[in-house]
């Protein structure tokens, strides 16, 4: 159901990979929209398909089935030539900025590179733009002459952000952008991302395993397990009324610093680990680890059900649980 005020819509999108002749269903029938100027947070553990969805969203990977619609255009059907001008409006920030920067290119050249490729401006204009961007992301203009190895992780992430901004994107996929950073640096970057969103009216697809970061930045949260959406809701609703047993487990796995006088918590244990996506369990994919699973859960795939305002849950027990 492509949504007119959405910048990006996933409509029943699936993605399979073939690895050594075996099919891996990385993303399975996923549908959601990112409203213009808003942030959708994608949460899940390894193998949940969250990074794959990020790459599908900006056309870095072709979908196996379904539609990815960017500003009214289905990018899954576009030829590379037709996709290129759109790609300028969709950028990505990676977890490890070092890996995405050439060690032999100065920071200034790396930022200018993207503008070069898209033929933006004159050399002088580009140079000025690099300086503006560096200042905007909180780096000294002199950083343009530095090589990546001379910068810290937080500074490199600022370079990654400057490079993504250089093409005036409308949509930015942020793939675990703060996970590899020190705590004191994480919130500097979160604040920067938030300020930039307001300033440039950016839309974000924010991928993270950290629920607190997702709560802080997102308007809508999508919870994934083994390539499927298990719960989706506006942020306040989700954190007030988490309903899927997996979402609840994720919330319960956060180790909060105790309040004064409060004793340390016991470590609650969810049995097992995420099953192999090559052979996902029958029925509900979470039933093998679910603390409240019943017989039906191993046999029948639950439907995504509306249980509150824009609050969707894929669980047989959702109605009784909510």
């Amino acid at each position, binding site marked *: 159901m492509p949504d007119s005020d959405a910048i990006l819509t996933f409509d029943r999108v699936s993605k399979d990979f073939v690895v050594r002749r075996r099919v891996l269903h990385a993303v399975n029938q996923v549908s959601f929209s990112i409203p213009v100027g808003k942030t959708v947070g994608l949460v899940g553990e*390894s193998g949940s398909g969250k990074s794959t969805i990020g790459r599908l969203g900006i056309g870095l990977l072709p979908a196996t089935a379904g539609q990815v619609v960017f500003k009214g255009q289905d990018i899954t059907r576009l030829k590379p030539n037709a996709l290129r001008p759109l790609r300028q409006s969709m950028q990505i920030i990676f977890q490890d900025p070092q890996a995405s920067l050439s060690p032999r290119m100065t920071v200034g050249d790396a930022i200018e590179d993207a503008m070069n490729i898209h033929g933006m401006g004159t050399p002088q204009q580009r140079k000025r733009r690099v300086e503006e961007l560096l200042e905007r992301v909180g780096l000294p203009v002199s950083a343009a002459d530095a090589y990546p190895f001379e910068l810290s992780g937080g500074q490199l992430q600022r370079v990654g952000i400057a490079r993504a901004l250089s093409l005036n994107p409308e949509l930015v996929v942020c793939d675990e952008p703060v996970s590899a950073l020190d705590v*004191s640096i994480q919130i500097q970057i979160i*604040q920067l991302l938030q300020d930039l969103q307001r300033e440039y009216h950016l839309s974000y697809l924010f991928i993270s395993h950290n629920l607190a970061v997702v709560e802080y930045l997102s308007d809508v949260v999508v919870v994934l397990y083994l390539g499927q959406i298990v719960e989706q809701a506006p942020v306040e609703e989700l*954190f007030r009324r988490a309903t899927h047993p997996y979402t609840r487990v994720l*919330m319960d796995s*956060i180790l909060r610093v*105790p309040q004064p006088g409060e004793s340390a918590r016991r*470590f609650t244990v*969810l049995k097992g*680990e995420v099953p192999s996506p090559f052979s996902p369990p029958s029925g509900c994919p979470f039933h093998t680890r679910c603390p409240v699973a019943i017989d039906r859960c191993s046999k029948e795939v639950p439907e995504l059900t509306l249980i509150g305002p824009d609050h969707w849950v894929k669980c047989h027990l959702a109605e009784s649980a909510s």
Partner: protein
Amino acid sequence: MADQPLLTVESLYTRFKRGTDTIYAVNGVSFSVSAGEVVGVVGESGSGKSVTMMSLLGLVRGRATVDVKRATFKKWELPRLTPRQLEDIRGREIGVIFQDPMTSLNPVMRVGDQVMEAMLAHQYATPRAAFNRTLDLLREVGIPDAVQRFRNYPHEFSGGMRQRIMIAMAIACEPDLLIADEPTTALDVTVQMQILALLQELRERRHMSIVIITHDFGVATNFCDRILVMYAGRIVESAAVAEFVAQPAHPYTIGLRSSILEIGSRGRPLSPIPGLPPTVTEPPKNCSFAPRCPYAIDRCREELPELRVLSPGHEVACHRAEEVISLAG
């Protein structure tokens, strides 16, 4: 908890040569670990938290110089031991686990053989006994089907399962001290919980001391008895967890605490610590945190604050700790 220190370290210094620079990674660290105690060493990258522990174990890489006045573990004076003797203590008396089990496990050796080898190398058990004990250990750390899994190679396990195998190897010779360097950082949150639960269970069952090195205050405050906070190669604060959460006294600790996003932070303005942690290229002569500290005064830029007792069991390296507590509320 016994008060008998198992490990006592006094004035540890470690520096590295990097190109023409000298990096002062550890700058006069003193602490002790009691029998059965769980101590968390918390800090950001470059704070010296790993280097401190690895210096004691003879595991620092590169061109490093380690100076220490005293490092007593049980009956041994660690700095006086030969590399061979230290290697024997490591593994037999002190178990070590790392963030990434893949770098410490041999990829072409069956995991069961690796756990067995941990015992055989230290003449801890006969081959027959080591075999049986390996099966027991694999079960104890939660590897299902131990007999079959004994024959598998590391790549056939998930990250969480590999960390369990590392733990089995580390505890095989029943060490009195386990040093865990970011043991759950690379794991998914639900698996992190499992590993912490396992370590807690082992600690209770075996009355083992644990030093856990982590950047995560949530892990440290829920898992440990006492916390050491490191910054720029020095301990800046040390306190029992209850005191630590009730009354943090060092501005860096307070700043880090308020940097942590927790559920419910939405809409709250963020208060980041400005600037970056320093790379220490000369021996510190003043407070390394002063350039980022909202409470810094001239004295902080002139005089190195020593770790001093603020209240029984609570030590802090800040000239203004008392004022900071009242100002920070």
